[in-house]
């Protein structure tokens, strides 16, 4: 009887442990399948000739590009064959196999911080000769503020015109992330096939920072769509500093163009450049010698130039007006949408401590705030339908190219002009890859 009991004990304990093991096995995640990406390559005779021997799994052709399902080894083969490609997996979650269950992010076709980082990395990886990423700094919550530099010989600092495009100072202006990002994508993907773009990229250094306020954008996506500022926890318990009131020219000039009250939507912060996000832009600006700057915002459909802090004209009002008028005309040609233009204070409202006043006030360069569509609240305010992203980009593209080309033609060489390339002076300068 005693031995029977013992046997029962052992059997039961063995059963229990088998059950424990079974439970763990059933609860453990399964081995993930091999990661596959969908990439696109330009459909040109040269590329097709190099692509054919690789015998890759071509899915379809769309807007002049071939879409291919690739494993890691296929990407290596593309690299070895010198075929530039763009990773497009995020557009086809159902096809990629990587995560067949995901349909779309909570923000639809708009970029979140993670999606933007991933897409910028993919762009830089696909175009290593002409694109390089830099981390300008970290946001309050530790997110990277990433810049992509686009130029031939991108690893070198050449005596070329430099232009800066900025996006998303204000979190709720989602479209202002897309336009600079799409500009970078367009320049990189059309570099080989479009001679005008090639010329612009070869003769200039184009810096694009699509997302200046990543913390605010994430809060806007995740919690409250109409969030504007960054995520600074202010001393009174309110949150946020308006990054476009935190720059150092005319900062706190008056309490109309910005506010000293932390809870205000236009709170300027405790000091000029008190925020890491604006300091990141400042650091880049100080390092480089930009000839022009565009900061994308929404809404109002208007091109603004300094001053914002006063209604007085600048000494370069005519130049600003000329450039803005030309950009507006180019924009109108695309979709017929009219972008008004004028000085910020005169055309919209007083703003002090904004990006363009600072860029113009400290460096004397043409600097524009482009308020993207729609015109008013009834047209959507800070909302743009997903289907409007590309049309808005297409009408802004010629304006951006025009400004790049204007910068090239007006570039006065202040550096050695021997034609030799200058060794990259960045290490230790504060810019981080």
């Amino acid at each position, binding site marked *: 009887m005693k031995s029977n009991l013992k046997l029962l004990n052992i059997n039961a304990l063995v059963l229990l442990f088998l*059950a424990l093991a079974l439970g763990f096995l059933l609860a453990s995640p399964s081995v993930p399948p091999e990661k596959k990406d969908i990439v696109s390559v330009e459909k040109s005779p040269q590329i097709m000739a190099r692509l054919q021997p690789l015998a890759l799994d071509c899915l379809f052709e769309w807007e002049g590009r071939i879409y291919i399902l690739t494993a890691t080894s296929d990407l290596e083969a593309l690299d070895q064959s010198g075929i530039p490609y763009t990773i497009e997996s995020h557009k086809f979650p159902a096809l990629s196999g990587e995560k067949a269950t995901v349909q779309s992010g909570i923000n639809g076709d708009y970029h979140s911080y993670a999606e933007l980082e991933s897409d910028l990395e993919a762009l830089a990886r696909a175009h290593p000769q002409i694109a390089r990423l830099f981390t300008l700094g970290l946001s309050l919550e530790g997110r990277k503020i990433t810049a992509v530099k686009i130029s031939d010989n991108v690893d070198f600092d050449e005596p070329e015109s430099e232009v800066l495009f900025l996006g998303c100072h204000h979190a709720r202006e989602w479209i202002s992330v897309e336009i600079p990002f799409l500009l970078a994508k367009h320049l990189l993907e059309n570099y080989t096939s479009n001679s005008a773009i090639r010329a612009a990229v070869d003769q200039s250094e184009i810096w694009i920072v699509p997302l200046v306020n990543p913390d605010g954008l994430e809060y806007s996506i995740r*919690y409250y769509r109409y969030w504007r500022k960054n995520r600074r926890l202010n001393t009174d318990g*309110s949150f946020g500093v308006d990054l476009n009131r935190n720059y150092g020219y005319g900062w706190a000039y008056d309490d109309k163009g910005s506010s000293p009250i932390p809870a205000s939507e236009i709170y300027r912060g405790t000091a000029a450049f008190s925020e890491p996000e604006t300091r990141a832009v400042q650091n880049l600006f100080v390092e480089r010698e930009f000839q022009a700057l565009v900061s994308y915002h929404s809404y109002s459909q208007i091109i603004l130039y300094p001053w914002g802090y006063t209604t007085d004209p600048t000494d370069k009002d005519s130049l600003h007006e000329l450039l803005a008028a030309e950009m507006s005309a180019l924009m109108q040609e695309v979709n017929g949408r009219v972008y008004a233009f004028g000085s910020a204070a005169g055309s919209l409202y007083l703003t002090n401590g904004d990006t363009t006043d600072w860029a113009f006030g400290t460096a004397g360069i043409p600097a524009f705030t482009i308020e993207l569509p729609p015109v008013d609240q009834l047209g959507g305010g800070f909302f743009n339908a997903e289907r409007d992203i590309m049309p808005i980009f297409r009408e802004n593209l010629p304006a951006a190219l025009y400004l790049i080309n204007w910068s090239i033609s007006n570039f006065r060489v202040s550096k050695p002009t021997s034609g030799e390339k200058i060794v990259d002076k960045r290490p230790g300068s504060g810019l981080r890859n």
Partner: protein
Amino acid sequence: MSRTALLIRCFLVPAILIAVALSSPAQLVMGQYEDEAPLRTWNTFGLATAASTGRGETNLIQTDDSSAALANPALLAGLPGFTVSLSGSYSRSSLFRYSIVNTGVLVSKKNLGVGLFALDFAGVSYRFREWTFALTAALTEAYDRPQAYAESISQGVPDYAILFEQSGFLRTVNLAVARGVGSRFQVGIGVNFVRGELERRVVDESFNDDITISHQVNQTFSGVFFNFGLLAHIRDHLDLAFALRTPYEKKARSRSELRYLAPQGGTDILIDAGSDDLYRQPWAAGVGARYEVSARFRLFGSLTYFRWSGYKVEYFGEEETRDFGSTFKTAVGGEWSFGARIFNNDIILPLRLGLGYDRQPMRTPRSAYVIFSAGTGVHWRAITFDIGSQIGRESGSGRNLDAKRVCVSLGFKK
């Protein structure tokens, strides 16, 4: 007021407040009250009915009903041949920082509370030869939040309003079996099916120009996990218990509708999204001890470990950051049983007390609840009626949050 007091009031206190505010991290991650955070505590391990609640939730080692199936199924083997139990509760939790409240959009000076009535447990157990089977259903988590509504009024007429609301729950259905093994051991195993939902809504309305901005997120949850238990009679008066819950993927089918509606401008913009997401729930394990001081007086203790460092969230296809560390919950409790005779009937009146410490998983702020419990009941023949209550006071967030719960259970044993 003395000069020193004046100095402190005028300078030192504001200086400290400013210093504290400056040193506080900006928070996107709410930690304590992320949208998916259960009310009261992250550390749920089964469900405590009234008797367990009164003993400080030491339900790994002692049970009066089939709710043991959810915490330590081995305890089922110690129940009478047939039991039926029903339990309901009222809980009230206070929150300060959650979603758009006190994170920049809506401001509240005080903690906000949310109360919840629920029939939160029903279970039946039955012994067949050496085996005890149980089928139980419990409302194990609630995701409700205090509703927030603010309105701005211009010239006596509302011109703008904002609304936030969230509700949700997780229900667990458990099928468990247990048996005695020899004279010293009881073992049990349970399979748990979880189902739940969460709905969150933020609506901005501008009345003058008839513009409505709304964001609605709906999620439905499902998942399966196992739990195991062991009870060992170490000595005549001492029992030890061990319980384990496997990790599991709480799968979520998520839908989002973000809409901008301006009829006067003919504008209707909809950004809708759908995703299959998951919340990778951690494994948890606990040990418990029961010491019978006398026939009428017993002491209980339990310690449960939750491996929150392995917690992962995928929300609309993106991995979300949760700065969580593994944590624990511990409790001690006691129960005195008194016999009495009322209307010529012999009854038993238990008195219960408990004390618990419940450390929450987020690293910042390092928040924990201290929980006081008390309970009593009336046991008459096969009928049991119990009531238990808890008051938890939080420290760490700087807001002194509290969590209260009153639970009433009715049981039948034969």
